[in-house]
C-alpha cells in the first residue's frame, strides 16, 4: 500500500520543483491533446513555447511578452496577498474593467486638454476604481457575511455590462461615425501610455508591475501586516487571539488587489487596447489567478509565472496564425497547468511512503 505521511513543514525543494514539473506535464498532456485533434504535437509545443522568443518572427513577438506579462503580474501580486490570508478575490477581471473605465473617464472628460499631470491622475483614478469595485465584496462580507468569492465573481458580469454600456453609450466616441468604443487614447498624447523604450514593449504598466513585485515582497516578508496576513491564512483562530482583526484584513486584501487590478486595466486601456470597448476584459483577471498559484503566491515566483503565461498567450496567437490552432488552446493549456500544479502540490505537503501492512 502507498501511504501519504504529512510533512512537518512545507518542503522547500518541492515548492520550487512542482511548478516546473507542472509545466512539463502540461507540455506532455498538451502534446497528446494536439495529437488527438490532428496537429503535430512537437511543432505545436515549439510554436507556443519556443518560437515567440527565438523563432523567425521573434523580433515582433518578444516585446509582446512584457505587454502581456505586465497586467498578469500586477493583478497576481495583489491576489496572492489575499490568497495567503485565505481571502478569495475571484473578481479581479471586474476590478480590471472598472479601473480601465474610471481611468479612461478622466481623460475623456478633460479631452482635449494637454497637461503633464493628466496621466498620473488617470492612474490614480484607475487605482481608485478598482479599489472601490473590490471594496464591494469586502464590505458585504464584513457587514453581512456574504461570500466574497461569489460576490466578486458576480461583479465581473456586472462590470462587463458596464463596459458594454459605456462603449455604446456615455463614452462612445462622438467622432467615431457611430461605431461603439471610446476615443482612442493612444492618439491623445497626454493620456497615452506609450512604449517607453522602443522595441521592448515596456510601458508604464511594466514599471508598475515591477514596483508591485517589490512592494508585495516587502509587505509579505518584512512588514507586520504581511505577518498578520500569513498568520491568518495558516491559523485563523490563533491570529484572532493574537489581536489580528479579520475584517481589517478582508478590506485590506480586497482593496489592494482591486486597486492593482484597476491600475492594470487603466494601463491597458491607455496603452495596448487604446480605448474602452465592450471587450475591455480579455481574461487577464482570471489568468492572473493561475499566475498567483503557479508563482507559489510569492512575488518572485509570480514574476516568473507571469512571464511564462504571457508566453503562452503570444505562442497561442502565433500557433493560431501559423498552424491554425484553435484560439481557445491557450485557455485549455492554462487550465491544465493549474490542474497539474494542484495535483503535484501534494508532494510539498506529504511524503509518499510504502507502508508495511500491519
Amino acid at each position, binding site marked *: 500500500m502507498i501511504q*501519504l505521511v504529512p510533512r512537518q513543514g512545507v518542503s522547500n525543494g518541492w515548492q520550487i520543483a512542482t511548478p516546473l514539473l507542472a509545466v512539463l506535464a502540461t507540455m506532455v498532456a498538451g502534446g497528446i491533446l494536439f495529437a488527438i485533434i490532428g496537429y503535430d504535437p512537437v511543432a505545436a509545443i515549439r510554436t507556443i513555447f519556443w518560437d515567440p522568443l527565438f523563432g523567425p518572427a521573434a523580433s515582433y513577438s518578444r516585446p509582446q511578452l512584457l505587454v502581456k506579462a505586465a497586467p498578469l503580474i500586477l493583478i497576481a501580486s495583489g491576489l496572492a496577498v489575499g490568497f495567503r490570508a485565505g481571502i478569495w478575490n*475571484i473578481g479581479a477581471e471586474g476590478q480590471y474593467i472598472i479601473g480601465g473605465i474610471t481611468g479612461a473617464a478622466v481623460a475623456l472628460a478633460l479631452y482635449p486638454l494637454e497637461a503633464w499631470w493628466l496621466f498620473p491622475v488617470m492612474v490614480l483614478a484607475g487605482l481608485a476604481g478598482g479599489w472601490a469595485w473590490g471594496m464591494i465584496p469586502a464590505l458585504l462580507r464584513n457587514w453581512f457575511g456574504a461570500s466574497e468569492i*461569489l460576490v466578486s465573481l*458576480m461583479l465581473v458580469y*456586472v462590470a462587463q455590462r458596464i463596459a458594454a454600456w459605456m462603449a455604446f453609450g456615455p463614452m462612445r466616441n462622438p467622432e467615431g461615425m457611430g461605431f461603439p468604443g471610446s476615443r482612442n487614447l493612444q492618439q491623445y498624447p497626454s493620456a497615452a501610455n506609450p512604449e517607453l523604450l522602443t522595441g521592448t514593449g515596456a510601458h508604464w504598466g511594466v514599471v508598475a508591475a515591477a514596483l508591485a513585485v517589490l512592494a508585495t515582497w516587502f509587505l509579505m516578508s518584512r512588514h507586520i501586516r504581511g505577518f498578520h496576513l500569513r498568520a491568518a491564512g495558516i491559523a485563523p483562530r490563533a491570529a484572532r487571539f493574537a489581536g489580528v482583526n479579520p475584517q481589517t484584513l478582508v478590506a485590506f486584501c480586497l482593496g489592494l488587489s482591486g486597486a492593482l487590478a484597476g491600475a492594470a486595466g487603466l494601463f491597458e486601456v491607455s496603452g495596448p487596447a487604446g480605448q474602452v470597448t465592450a471587450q475591455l476584459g480579455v481574461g487577464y483577471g482570471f489568468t492572473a489567478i493561475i499566475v498567483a498559484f503557479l508563482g507559489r503566491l510569492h512575488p518572485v515566483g509570480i514574476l516568473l509565472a507571469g512571464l511564462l503565461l504571457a508566453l503562452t498567450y503570444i505562442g497561442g496567437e502565433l500557433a493560431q496564425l501559423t498552424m491554425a490552432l*484553435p484560439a481557445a488552446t491557450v485557455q485549455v493549456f492554462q487550465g491544465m497547468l*493549474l490542474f497539474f500544479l494542484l495535483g503535484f502540490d501534494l508532494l510539498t505537503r506529504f511524503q509518499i511512503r510504502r507502508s508495511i501492512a500491519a
Partner: protein
Amino acid sequence: MIDPISVFLLLLSASTPILFAALGELVVERAGVLNLGVEGMMIAGALAGFAAAYASGNPFLGFLVAALAGATISMLFALLTQVFLANQVASGLALTLFGLGLAAMFGKPFEGVRAPPMPMGPLRINWIVWLGLAMVPAIWWFLNRSRAGLILRGVGENHDAAHALGYGVRATRAAAVAFGGAMAGIGGAFISIATVLQWTEGMTAGAGWIALAIVVFSRWTAPGVLAGAWLFGGVTVLQLRLQAAGVDVPVQLLSMAPYLATILVLVLISARQKFSRHAGGAAPGSLGINFHALR
C-alpha cells in the same frame, strides 16, 4: 397585457438550468465538498449535449451525453481534491477555466447549426423541465429520508466521525461530485438544446456561479433551491420583458439584473444567518475541508 401563464412558463424555462446545477451542487456541498467548477461542468454539458443532439437528431440522447460529460469532467476535480488533497477553491476554479477552454476549443465546428426540435411534454412543458421539478422532492427524500442520504450528510457534517464509524468519506464525496457534475451537465445542455437552440462560446454566462449562490440562498435544502431558481428565473423573465417592452434603460444595464439580484439575495440570506440567533440551516460542518485519514 402580460399573460400570467405564459410568464410562468418562461420562468420555468429560465430557471431550469440553474435548478439542475444548484440541486447537483446541493448534494455535493451536503457531502462536505465545495465545487466551484459548476460553470465549467455546465459549459461542458452544454457543448457535449448539443453535439450529441445535433449528430443524432435526438435531444434526449443529448441530455444523456451531457450528464456523462459533466460527470466525467467533474472526476478531474474529485481526483484533485479527494486523492491529491488539493485546495477545493483552487481546484474548482481550475475546473471552470479548463471547462470553458475545452468547450471553446471543441465547439468551433458546432457554431451556426441548430439543435433538433424538442418534443413537448404534458401541459406543453418541456420534459426536462418536468424532470428538474421531479428532482426537487427526489433529492429532498434522498437527503432526509434515505440511509444513503444520512451517510452523505454525516460525511459532510463531520468527516472524522463518519470515518470512525467506518463510512468511506472519499468514495461518498467522489460519488456526490459525479452526481453534481451530471446535474450541471444537464443544466448546461438545457441552455444549448432547449433554450438558445444553438451553440455559442461562453453561453452559460455565469449560470454556474449563480447556481452556487442559490445553494447558499437555499440554506442547503432542496425546496430552498427551487425557490432560489424560480426567483432567479423571475428576475430574468422580468428583465427580458422590460427589454421587449422598450423601457428607456440601456439593454446592457437591464441585463445586469440577474447578477445584481444574486448579490442582493446572497447578502440578505447571509445577513439573516449572521444576525438571527436561531435561523438554522447553516453550512455543512466540513464544507470545503479536505479529509485525510492518518490510519
